[in-house]
């Protein structure tokens, strides 16, 4: 249940400045009245422990703000800028009288508007490092031509559709600009609900007050994604969550799952889960059940959409949900704060909520027909771009399980690593790898020396600057490809000294000595360039203890705030094959 706008306005006054490590600066520009939006952003950020500062441009001042180098917008120096535009403003008189001009004139008009808008967007991106999120235009439901609207060449609706398509194509490859599908937002809630003529006549309010919180809810996806806070794993109960009924009592044939109600509600929920799995969200099971009964359904029930291979981790036992949840986090090797928990039982939910507040426990209603909608309305799974690694993640975690089993059979770690046939390929930062490099700097917490967070455009700037060396490591072994799982950014201070600005490893490949392959590559490159010493820093955080001893283990020696490596070379472990592209 979303709150009314007044709740956020009141709540924003009570917010205290907390010293959170997650911070964001949000600028808001618009062609209509959006008062209340900044308070809503601040409160919704605070709910997620994000310290948010906002800048709201004057009413309809977006052009001036963007064109003037000295404007308060640029002084504010935002991380994210939202430009909210509306169809009435862009069309002017044509909103009411589209057929007062010919179709070719309408085409020219839209072409001109598109150019104006693109120029404005490009002007903004040249002047700042802020990401810009531009809303597309909602297609008006009313046309003066009524049912004949669809018989007009380049009519009112076609004009808006064309403008939206042009904007989308223009900025498809631009990682500083994102087009938010505002038209879908209007469709989701309905134009008659979210546009209120009275509010429009009184205050030029074009998203009615009660829908501002819903809009911010959608836009929060950009905040979550740009801070790398997207949730990565959905942990699911089984009985009355993935199917109706209790398998232990109702039996294999008694559970409700299939293409008739209520079984189809569970099936649909599974389809939505599978679609999220395919974009890189992991799925896990946390169920109090007899393992044989539950696994029989997962493995053999013809109406299960989700199969065993879709689950990165299965905890089906009689332990409590909190114990299982902690074990899932441990098995998958990432924090509880990246997990979402779905369970139909309010008691279990309350238990997890109170003991593990960092897990996002979703309040499910009694009615399973609502599950899919709730899941589809969540903005927590967003990332700014979907990389190849994301779409393969589920499969990679499965291979990880096989590695784990193999590891438990190996007599010692050294033999295990030898038999793993590890191959580390060092790849340059280019258009294919930059999105993943940025993603890893934003997401990696554990094996990360400095935890510097970089957006794609910042990585691009490093790559273009010959004072920096940026690269990444792809790790393969006998079980499959782990994808790009290591990143290094080296700053060339002087001809004699380089500094490790960033050195990180995804938790997926920790404990394989891959880091030594990467450091050996960096040291080799440094020596080839006549560099005498490499400098590095370990900046401790709450989460990066696993990397604490890495520098001394590699032979770095501490002097003051830095660790230094000045030996002539570095030997990587023999069981690793290093491929330097």
């Amino acid at each position, binding site marked *: 249940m979303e709150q009314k706008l007044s709740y956020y306005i009141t709540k924003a006054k009570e917010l205290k400045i907390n010293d959170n490590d997650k911070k964001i600066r949000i600028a808001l520009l618009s062609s209509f009245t959006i008062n209340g939006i900044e308070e809503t952003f601040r409160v919704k950020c605070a709910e997620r422990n994000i310290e948010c500062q906002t800048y709201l441009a004057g009413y309809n001042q977006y052009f001036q703000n963007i064109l003037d180098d000295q404007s308060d917008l640029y002084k504010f120096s935002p991380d994210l800028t939202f430009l909210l535009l509306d169809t009435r403003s862009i069309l002017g008189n044509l909103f009411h009288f589209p057929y007062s001009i010919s179709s070719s004139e309408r085409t020219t008009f839209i072409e001109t508007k598109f150019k104006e808008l693109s120029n404005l967007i490009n002007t903004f991106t040249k002047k700042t490092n802020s990401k810009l999120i531009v809303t597309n235009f909602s297609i008006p439901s009313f046309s003066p031509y009524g049912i004949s609207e669809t018989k007009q060449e380049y009519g009112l609706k076609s004009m808006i559709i064309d403008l939206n398509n042009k904007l989308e194509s223009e900025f498809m490859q631009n990682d500083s600009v994102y087009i938010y599908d505002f038209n879908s937002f209007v469709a989701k809630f309905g134009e008659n609900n979210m546009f209120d003529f*009275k509010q429009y006549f*009184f*205050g030029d309010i074009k998203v009615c007050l*009660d829908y501002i919180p819903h809009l911010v809810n959608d836009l929060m996806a950009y905040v979550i994604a740009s801070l790398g806070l997207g949730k990565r794993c959905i942990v699911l109960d089984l009985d009355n969550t993935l199917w109706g009924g209790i398998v232990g009592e109702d039996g294999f044939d008694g559970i409700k799952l299939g293409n008739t109600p209520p079984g189809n509600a569970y099936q649909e929920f599974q389809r939505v889960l599978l679609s999220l799995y395919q974009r890189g969200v992991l799925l896990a099971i946390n169920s109090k059940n007899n393992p044989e009964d539950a696994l029989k359904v997962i493995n053999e029930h013809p109406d299960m959409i989700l199969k065993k291979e879709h689950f990165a981790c299965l905890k089906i036992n009689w332990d409590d949900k909190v114990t299982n949840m902690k074990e899932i986090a441990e098995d998958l090797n990432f924090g509880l704060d990246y997990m979402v928990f779905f369970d139909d039982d309010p008691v279990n939910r309350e238990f997890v909520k109170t003991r593990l507040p960092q897990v996002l426990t979703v309040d499910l209603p009694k009615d399973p027909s609502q599950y899919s909608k709730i899941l589809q309305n969540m903005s927590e799974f967003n990332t700014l771009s979907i990389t190849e690694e994301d779409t393969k993640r589920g499969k990679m975690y499965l291979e990880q399980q096989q590695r784990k089993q193999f590891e438990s059979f190996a007599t010692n770690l050294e033999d295990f690593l030898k038999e793993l046939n590890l191959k580390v390929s060092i790849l340059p930062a280019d258009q294919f790898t930059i999105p993943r490099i940025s993603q890893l700097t934003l997401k990696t917490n554990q094996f990360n020396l400095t935890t510097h967070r970089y957006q794609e455009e910042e990585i691009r700037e490093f790559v273009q600057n010959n004072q920096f060396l940026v690269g990444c490591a792809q790790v393969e072994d006998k079980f499959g490809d782990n994808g790009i799982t290591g990143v290094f950014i080296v700053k060339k201070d002087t001809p004699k000294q380089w500094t490790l600005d960033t050195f990180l490893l995804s938790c997926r490949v920790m404990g394989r000595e891959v880091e030594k392959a990467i450091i050996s590559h960096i040291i080799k490159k440094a020596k080839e360039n006549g560099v005498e010493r490499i400098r590095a820093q370990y900046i401790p955080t709450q989460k990066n203890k696993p990397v604490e001893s890495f520098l001394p283990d590699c032979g770095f020696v501490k002097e003051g705030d830095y660790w230094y490596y000045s030996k002539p070379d570095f030997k990587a472990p023999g069981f690793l094959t290093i491929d330097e592209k």
Partner: protein
Amino acid sequence: MSKKLYSLIAKVMGVDISIIDDNSSPETIPSWDSFNSYVLLDELESEFKTQFTIDEVVSTKNVADIKYYLKIHGVALDD
């Protein structure tokens, strides 16, 4: 009912309920700006389950006017 109305106005304007009376208006309460007027209108309509006409809104100058129009809309204020 008046108390309910006063507390709603106090909440929207971010002031203490004790300073609200029938003469309260944008002239006497600094936070009662045009935007808070829209928020108040929205809150009144959902709280008292009624819709004011645009003319009624335009001619509302203070709390007494709000009470007057609420009565016209059949909302019983108990004082």
